[in-house]
């Protein structure tokens, strides 16, 4: 039964990490524009045109 003494904290810590990650994502605006985020991954011209992205070596 001593196993639960460290298994319980581990389980709670992992769950807490998940919760923390979600709250952080919510706060940092990850859910502001779900449609846009889905569409933006299709854009690749930031690699060639804009100067703010590192060009490929």
């Amino acid at each position, binding site marked *: 039964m001593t196993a639960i003494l460290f298994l*319980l904290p581990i389980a709670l810590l992992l769950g807490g990490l998940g919760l923390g990650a979600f709250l952080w994502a919510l706060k940092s605006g990850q859910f*502001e524009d779900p449609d846009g985020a889905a569409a933006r991954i299709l854009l690749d011209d930031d690699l060639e045109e804009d100067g703010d992205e590192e060009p490929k070596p």
Partner: protein
Amino acid sequence: MTTATAETEIGCPSGLEPPADGVSIDPAPFVRRSNGLARLDLAVFGAKCAGCIRKIESAMNALPEMQSARLNLSTGRLSLVWKDGAFAPREIAERLDAIGYRAAPFDPEKVEQESDREGRKLLRSLAVAGFATANVMLLSISVWAGGGEMGPATRELMHWVSAMIAVPAALYAGRPFFSSALRALKSGHANMDVPISLAVLLALSLSIFEFFKGGPHTYFDAAVMLLFFLLIGRYLDHRLRLRARAAARDLLALQAATSSRLNEDGTLTSVAARDIVPGDRLLLAPGDRAPVDCVIEEGDSNLDMSLVSGESAPVHAQEGTSLYSGVLNLTSKLTVRATKSADASLVADLTRLIEAGEQSKSRYIKLADKAASLYVPVVHTLALATFLGWMFIGEAGLRVSVMNAVAVLIITCPCALGLAAPAVQVVATGRLFRSGVLVKSGDALERLAEIDAVVFDKTGTLTYGKPRLANREEISDETLRAAASLARVSRHPLARAIVAEAGPGKPAPDAVETAGAGIEGTIDGERARLGRAAWVGAESAADDDAQESWFRLGDAPPVRFRFEDRLREDACESIADLEKLGLEVEMLSGDRQAAAASIAERLGVKAWRAELQPQQKIERLEELKAKGVKVAMVGDGLNDAPSLACAHASFSPGSAADASQAAADYVYQGDNLAPIAETVVVARAARRRMLENFGFAALYNACAVPLAALGHVTPLIAAIAMSGSSIIVTLNALRLSMGKRRKS
């Protein structure tokens, strides 16, 4: 990639969305300046895909000194930051127009209200409740499964950890319910949140008490699970209402119109409509709308008065004519003097009528609220009866009596009730969305399911709302092409109809439009005129010259172009479908008697009225309402917006004026009327599902309450019953979207 060709096309490159029509508004008065930076938020219409993001953002980034340009595809908001003074804000609107998107500035004060603080709070509460439910359930299951094997010390440890998680989590996640319950109690009545809060708080305190006593049963898992399920329902409901508010955003954008003010020294400044004072001189270019009520000082032009009459046949106006706000200038430049401020003008009056209609709608009592008003007293009486029964008849002592009373409160948890309505609404709106119907509020489905009659506006709703050439076969290709080359210089609807029939081509080089008469130009070295019969030199027998125009090339005999507004293709079938659903159909039109009569006859509509002003349409709706008839209104014009708002339920086509779309409960896309009947069918099915769910919840309670009252309910049974009933109502709601798949 074919970047170059995509760049030359206008509008959404995916072809999902036609290019937005209309002209962008000069956003200059809405720019916010600080620290040498200028900021601007625009509502962009017509953006749908990744290609749109790239087109719009790269067009904006091409402007000098643009620091950040970001389009939010979900909300359609474009946020711009640039170095102040680098370019005129008008250039932003011009560039967007050039690539085929229309933009309207946001009123920054109103944007603030858009931020979704309540949704964030619900989502955070939901996350915390979900975390707590999962972990407490983990611990509770081991206690239940451990049964006889688990020693009291281990069980106590489990309960201790559960308490450490559940108590803070429930206090945090329960805040939306606690504060709402408190507000309700303060104002002296009980809503659904009162028994919820009571059940959660009692379950928590009872569990803490049991825990210190070393008892075997705690309800920590029940308390957080109850909150978790209810928060799901609450969040779904909130999302629906948020979408309704986003649709109302269009109306705000419309009110944020700007105009060109003519200064004393002859220069022009762009001003917001709300800053115009009576006496200001304004310049109305062709394509501009009058921002306030005003009178023409100089110039003459054709005007689109559809705001007032609903009819798009243009009216000729000259010096001294009074204009209502929202009137569209079609042909030539006008100088006008404002007679009223924006707040006193017709658009503002319409807005107030819409608000009045919406207020009367908000008095509508939703099914869920009706169920709640029954639920609250019944449950509280049952819990009290259980307590008194055990205390005095069973003489079981305080602890057992309270325990059983709390079990009643928990087992009757309104999970099924709280999830039943939102789950059905979300599934139904999702299904309608796929068929091209946007539902703007959850209770719209309930209202639509109750209607007995459908009232149609004529122009633009039953018909296309645009004149089309009716006698194409009488006109030679050569004549049509020549007439179209003149017509291309005009915004007049009849000229547009000729151009639409002739297809693409070049305008005549020296064509000039004379307001109220027609267009004159040179074709193949000969003078040509297109316009009114008298001006062209023809004898017209028609009594209504708004529906015809004449064309004459040189000395050749004049050719008559006749126009008519065509009925939508499936208008007859759709009306028959609605009648099959047991609905009365009526038509209200602002058009002349004769025109309305012929349309009504062709559609087989027996009840119709013509020559109605917006106010009279509302009166007719009120008259029907007084008779106890629940009416769904279908309309598209700005003049229909107040009647849309005051009807029991309302539809507007996607091609309608912004204000009408904002006022309507449903916006349907495409050229067909079929979505109306489909929406009625779905709404009725949704209502049936909801009633089934409420029926199920009642049945479940009828079985569970006696068990709980007799003291047979353990935390394990409560947890199974609670999650079981929630899953069943959700599955029942999902049947709505499965029915569709089977049919198609």
